[in-house]
Structures are given as C-alpha cells and as structure tokens.
C-alpha cells in the first residue's frame, strides 16, 4: 500500500479550494498537476479543470474539501 492516493487527495483539495476562491492561475494549476502521483489523481485533476469530477470522485474529495460541496 502506498500513500500516493492519500497525498493526491491533498493536492486535489488544494486545487478545488483555490478554484473556489478564484485564485487558481493556469501556471499554479500546472505546477500542482505535476505534483500528482497516481493515475487516479491526474484523471480527477483533468475532470476538475474540465468542469467537475465524477460523482464518486467528488464524494471522495468532499471528505477533505468543503469547497466541493
């Protein structure tokens, strides 16, 4: 068991919080994307940027990110 997905959730939560505050610039978003370690993390990041993650991923992220409620 690795901590990749756990750590990716922290990054994705940051993305969601910054977006909600309209503070996420494209450069910062790209820098955060490079910190993602799992395929799942990169997929959810793309979904976040494209409009919103799938309900099951959204439900998961809501456990550590109120910005996605």
């Amino acid at each position, binding site marked *: *068991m690795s*901590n990749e997905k756990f750590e990716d959730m922290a990054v994705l939560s940051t993305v969601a*919080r910054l977006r909600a505050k309209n*503070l*996420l610039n*494209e450069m910062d978003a790209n820098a955060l994307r490079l910190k993602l370690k799992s395929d799942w993390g990169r997929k959810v990041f793309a979904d976040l940027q494209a409009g919103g993650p799938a309900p099951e991923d959204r439900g998961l992220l809501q*456990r550590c990110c*109120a910005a996605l409620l």
Partner: protein
Amino acid sequence: MEFILPGALTGSCPAWPPDVFAVAATLMRRTGSYVRCLATGGKSAVSLLDERWPGRAEAIGGAWRRAICAALKEHAGSGKTSLESALLRATLPPSVTQAWSTLCNRAGTSFGSCTADDALTRSLLELSGYADEASWSIGLESAGDEQDEYGQAAQLFLALNDKQSFCHRVHPQRARVLGKKHTPQQGLTLRSLTHHLSLCMPWEVEPLWFDLDSARLDDVLNLLLLPWPLEVKATDFQCVNSGSGLSELRGDSLFEYSRPSRPDSEVERWVLDAIERAKRQVSKLHAVVLPELALTRSEWKIAEAVAIRSGVMLISGIIDDTDDKSGLPMNSCRIQMMSLPTRPGAETVAAAPPPAFRQAKHHRWCLDRHQVLQYDLGGQLPSALRCWENSHIGDRRIFFAHLGGWLTFSVLICEDLARQDPIADVLRSVGPNLVIALLMDGPQLAARWPARYASVLADDPGSSVLTLTSLGMCQRSRPVGGGGAGSRVIALWKDKLYGTRELELPEGCDACVLSLARDTREEYTADGRSDGKATEVTVYSGFFPVPAGSARNP
C-alpha cells in the same frame, strides 16, 4: 543566508512570511542568539525588545498578512497572474523591510559574533515575530472556517513542497517551515519563540503536514481502544535466519512476530460488535484505535470497511506489512482518517473507500534477556543473545494531520516513542495536541518507560499522549520481582494539565472508550507574545470499560 535562500542578499525582502522566518530562525538556531529575547532585570538591565513589542509585533504581522491578502485578491487567479507573481506586488510594512535590510547589512558578521550584535539580533527576533504573527492558524484552517487568501496561498505552497513545508522560495531541502500547535512554556529554545510557525531542519526525517478540511469535530472525542490481540502465544515469536550472518557476528539474533490472518467474517463481526457495545457507553464514537502489530493487512481491509460504514477513524499497527520497494517485512501502522461523517450535502454515490495513510516504524524492537524472560519467551528466543525485530527500516516519515477544526495528531510506533531521535526535533517543533503511540509492550503503568517518554512530550512541547498496548502482551508480562504481573493496564494517558492516568480493563471487559475533551489555554512565547487563549489542549475526560460480548474474541 544565501544557503537558505539563494539571492537573499541581493534581492529585496521576501514577501512570504514563512520564507523570512526560515532565514531568521535558521540563523538564530545556528547562533543561539534567540536567547536575547529575554529581559534580565537589575542595575544593568538590558532588553532588546521593550514592553510595546508584543503589541507592535501583532500589529505589524497583521498588516503584513493584510497586504498579502490584498495583493493576492487583486492580482492572482484565472486570467491574472500566478500567486508567486501576485505576492511580489504586496506592499510590505516598513518595519519588516527595515529589519530585513539590517539583517542583510550585517551578513558579514561571523557566527561567533552574532549574539553580541544588538542590531543584528534585534532584527532576527523582529523578523521571526512579525512572520509568526502574520501566520496565525497556518495549516490549521480546516473545518469550514473561511480561509483568507493567505491561508489559500499557504495550502498551495505546502502542496508544491510535497506537504513538507509552507515556504515559497526556501527549498525544503534547506529548511522546512510547518505549522504549530503548542509553544513550550518551560525552558528556552527556538521553539519557545513562536505560536504559529515551526522550523524543521531538513534532516533525515521527512515531516508531512495534512490539513484535512473535514467536518468539524465535537469538543468531546471518544476513542474506542481495542487492545488486540487479547492473547499472545509464545509460539507467535520465532527466530529468523538473517541470511547475511552480520547479526550473528555481533552476537545478535533476529525474530519475527507472526500469526495467521483470521477469517474476514469473524473480523467484521468482532469490529462491528465492539463498536456496537461501545455505543452503549457513549452515544457517539469518533475513532477506533488498536495497538502495534494488531491486524494483518487483510484484517485491516475488513476493519477499515466497517470503520468507514460506521463513520469513525481507524488507527492500527499492521503485522504483515512489506516495504513497497524491497518487499522486506516492515512494521507499520495505518491511519484511516477520512472515514469521519461527511458534511450535509455531500455526494451519497458509493465511492471507492477513502485512502488510508501508512507510516513505518523508525526503530527495531530489541528483546534482550530481561525482556525474553519478562514475556516468558525463553523457549522460543535465545535469551543469551539480543534478539532484534526482523523489520526493514526505510524512509523515515512522520505525518501531522489537522482535522475537525482543533485536532492535530501524530502516530508513533512503540520504539519510536522511546528512541525519540531522530524524530524528536520535528515532533517537538510542531507540538501536535495528540500523539498516539501504538505499542507491543507490557502493562502501561505510570512507573514504566512509556509514561516517562509521554511525560517528556507533555512537558515540552505540551502534547497530550496516549499509549496503547495489547491485552495479550500485558498478560504475558511477568517482570522480575513481580510488579505488574497479570496487569490489565492496557493504556496510559498523559496531558499537561491534568497529568497521568493508567487505563485498566476490569475483568470481564475486552475494550474501553477513552473520552477526550478540547480545552483551551493561553500560551506565551518567550518574547512575551500571547496567543489570545487560542491553544487547544486535548485533555482526559472519561474512561468507560466495555463489557465483553458473546462473540469469541480475537
């Protein structure tokens, strides 16, 4: 300065307070000049900071934070500039830039002369104080509190630093700055100087900081302690051939502790049954905690699923873990902390289970003759040799998780509490308000070693400590002289306000609920700044033994 922050001497003052703190604090730690924050009275009274300093630091730190928030609000975001560029637009308070200039102008001062240089030392103390005041609640902003732009920027930099530091321009391999929960109220170290920022040197231990924006925790926290296994057999301990012969050369031996995994259905029933029985003692449960080496990986999966369904955290030592890279056996613990109930309005679509966090043990357990006899293992392990736990020691990491608005906790595994190096420095710097130590040990009596080390952490930095062992090891313990034989003291609690409590399971009980409460206290830095009674202390609030159920126990 140039090592910590390349370009520091040629550029302007860094706009981001944790960067400034990293430079000032590293210099103060290297030179010891922070000791001059104290005023000494008498005829030749000397003080670098006057009585107006606490108010001035608060005002200037607050102005610094507001300047950053204003710059980020105006210049950062989609279609605007990056947070880094926006930070450069912040207009720093003149007191900050003046102190930075003073520091840069004295960059040629030798380390040995720093402390005697009043202007240099004053500038270091001021920069540290301003940065600390600007950084209130950094990394502690979860649970729905409206996070300002400063807090958002801190989250970004933490993520970009792989959760190891809140700095922006200071690389985490040069200095790390994290949040903080306790300020030591005794002695005088660099840790005594700040409420909100901690300096963690980039040495071998990798700290990881997670600020989980989970639903707010109640002010009472109920932990179900399952002291599993309830029985430990001598035959669970076996000698292991090291393969290399190195251990034998030293006159040492290796051992492993193992047992077969229990059937999934039994594990599920045991955990569910324990939670249900605990809920007869307290209406709400927040976490289930098991000792070191309590569950196999497959048992963890079952217990984790139950914990997620029940909306409680799960913390347990793992018996049969292996290192991902080498495949070698590894003593570890797992922490499922995203299983707490979600907020109203959250998605209800069945999702994959939230990921748990894994942390490895930093030291091997060594069973010497004394312990082999104490645990009655002489028929399994050679008492004439030192028997080392056959566990791979890899990357040393320690996590700090802030969740629910007030709880910042860490988990240690057995020896990691006793051998506080190399994690002591980072643990004391951050001062989490709860440290949970998972043990494979004898009874948790106040006279034994876990209580001594818990006291050390309760004294400095002020952390509350829970130590938990298995009933099986408790019952195996037969100390020379008989003290504690047959004991059922499976856990020990220590907090700085109300002291030590031995938690003893009465006969007929196989679990207990430990109730903890959030208390608030005022702490002061050594330079006289108050935190406004904002320090949250986790204190003992009750102990409720859980009568054994009808299900056969593990």
